[in-house]
């Protein structure tokens, strides 16, 4: 405690200390990279692996549909260990079924530990919805942004269904919104089976099931609802996607 106080009180010491930390960081970078936790996302439609365009699936009401686009934002990853250790990441990731590389997320510098739960946000925090133009995953060029009513689209699911009454039998679910009348930010917490956790944690494989979007709590009837592009029905869809994820494997 005393030494911490001394460091804080003396400017020059603090500078030396920062320099040391910097030096240490430079040398320890490769070691830290090894402690990155990889989160792999596997997309399913029920018990079938999701195949864009070619796969055909059936919702709860027996309506057939295909999927042409599946994209969503994950952010604010949080890990909690049995002994109370916590890990937080503020980073935002855009997962896109079309690009395999986006289905692997790396969380850097995850300390070794017996983690009991993983939580994350499906969506983008309200503050990031109000911060003006941003780059990387949040660049509007990614097509996950509404230009007339500012806000990120958190999840896009598009495809075709013979049940849909939209032009060309399309259905389009663009779900987002960070404020009233539709707050679609959902926090998802998944338990991690401790017994299977090896130290340090290397990889968590998550399963995301598009059928869940049609299922609960509300059943989606594609002949009635084939387009969600603003706040109408958005919260219902968000409640549906909040139970879309489960843990498949832990390594």
């Amino acid at each position: 405690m005393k030494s911490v106080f001394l460091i804080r009180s003396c400017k020059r010491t603090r500078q030396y200390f920062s320099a040391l930390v910097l030096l240490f960081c430079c040398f320890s970078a490769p070691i830290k990279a090894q402690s990155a936790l990889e989160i792999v996302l596997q997309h399913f439609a029920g018990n079938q692996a999701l195949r864009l365009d070619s796969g055909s699936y059936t919702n709860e009401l027996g309506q057939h549909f295909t999927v042409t686009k599946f994209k969503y934002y994950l952010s604010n990853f949080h890990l909690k260990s049995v002994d109370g250790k916590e890990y937080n990441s503020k980073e935002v990731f855009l997962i896109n079924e079309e690009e395999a590389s986006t289905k692997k997320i790396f969380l850097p510098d995850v300390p070794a530990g017996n983690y009991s739960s993983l939580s994350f946000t499906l969506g983008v925090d309200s503050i990031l919805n109000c911060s003006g133009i941003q780059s990387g995953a949040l660049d509007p060029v990614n097509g996950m942004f509404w230009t007339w009513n500012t806000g990120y689209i958190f999840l896009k699911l598009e495809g075709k269904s013979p049940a849909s009454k939209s032009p060309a039998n399309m259905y389009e679910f663009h779900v987002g919104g960070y404020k009233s009348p539709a707050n679609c930010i959902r926090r998802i917490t998944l338990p991690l089976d401790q017994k299977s956790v090896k130290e340090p944690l290397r990889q968590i494989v998550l399963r995301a099931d598009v059928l869940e979007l049609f299922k609960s709590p509300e059943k989606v009837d594609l002949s009635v609802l084939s387009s969600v592009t603003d706040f109408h029905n958005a919260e219902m869809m968000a409640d549906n996607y909040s139970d879309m994820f489960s843990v498949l494997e832990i390594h």
Partner: protein
Amino acid sequence: MARHLIVFFFLIIFTVLFAGFIQDNPYFEIHPEDVELKIPKGFPEPLYDLKNNKITVAGFTLGRKLFYDPILSKDYFTSCASCHQRFAAFAHIDHALSHGMLGQIGKRNVPALQNLIWKDAFMADGGINHLDLQPLAPLTSPIEMGESLDTVLMKLQKDSIYPGLFKKAFGTTDITSERLLKSLSQFLALMVSSNSRFDKYLEGKETFSDQETRGLNLFRTKCENCHKEPLFTDNSYRNIGLKPDSALKDSGRAAITGKAEDYMRFKVPSLRNVERTYPYMHDGRFRNLNEVMKHYAEGKFYTDNFDQSIQRAVGLTEQEQSDLIAFLKTLTDNTFLMDRRFADPSMR
């Protein structure tokens, strides 16, 4: 043949010399002192955080070029300035509804661009929450500039001039949405109107006629509730009892919030330079200020949720109406309207 070659050669020389002359035209040159933001006396702290987007000579110059360049639109004919005209405080003078590419007509009146860094939201319905994001709306709207963001970036990247200008402004030739929009914001942020006759009157540098003084006093009792000095708006959304337009079906703020009480509420516009921004209202239904005055004075208000404070203006006499108009004309800011920094740099 040789003579032709010589003529051709001289033509090239002249073109190059002339181009050089244009580039050096001092009227269009931006100097470091031109990009200093001075907060006018009596104005509040800006809401736009310039720490995240420091205005530079190169950034401002790039933003200005983009603002006036139709390359941003799908048809290569529509620029931001097509609808935002400098002499009209960047509104579209004498056009009720905005004009888009390929002769399309929009559904709202073009708003003036001024004092934007004091606005908490943009558009008549307040749907856009940040100045940086505002240009994306007209850019991507199929009835305005009709272009997609990635195509715009690609067009600029392939252009012979733009990569160099982006390098000057941001250090490398990469053209990203962030750089595109931040340079536009740099240009827009400096559009400050604070030098009207009214402002000079407040400083004691200008005198008002009797009529203008009467107008000012009337304004402060009848209109100030919503059109608050010094910005002449309180940034709120109000329904002023306009008759709903059955063709446009514009529900205003309600389209953003989904709330019934926001039906036909629109953002209170600033009245600075109002003399130049005709026609008026979100759909340009009133051709001149006389018609605006008549709307308030007659007190024929439609829709149930109109703002009660507008009742104050009911019964304004004709004399009072013209007094108010005389005052409103003192809000015309010729320094801003003639500011060379905002002139079209491609006009030679």
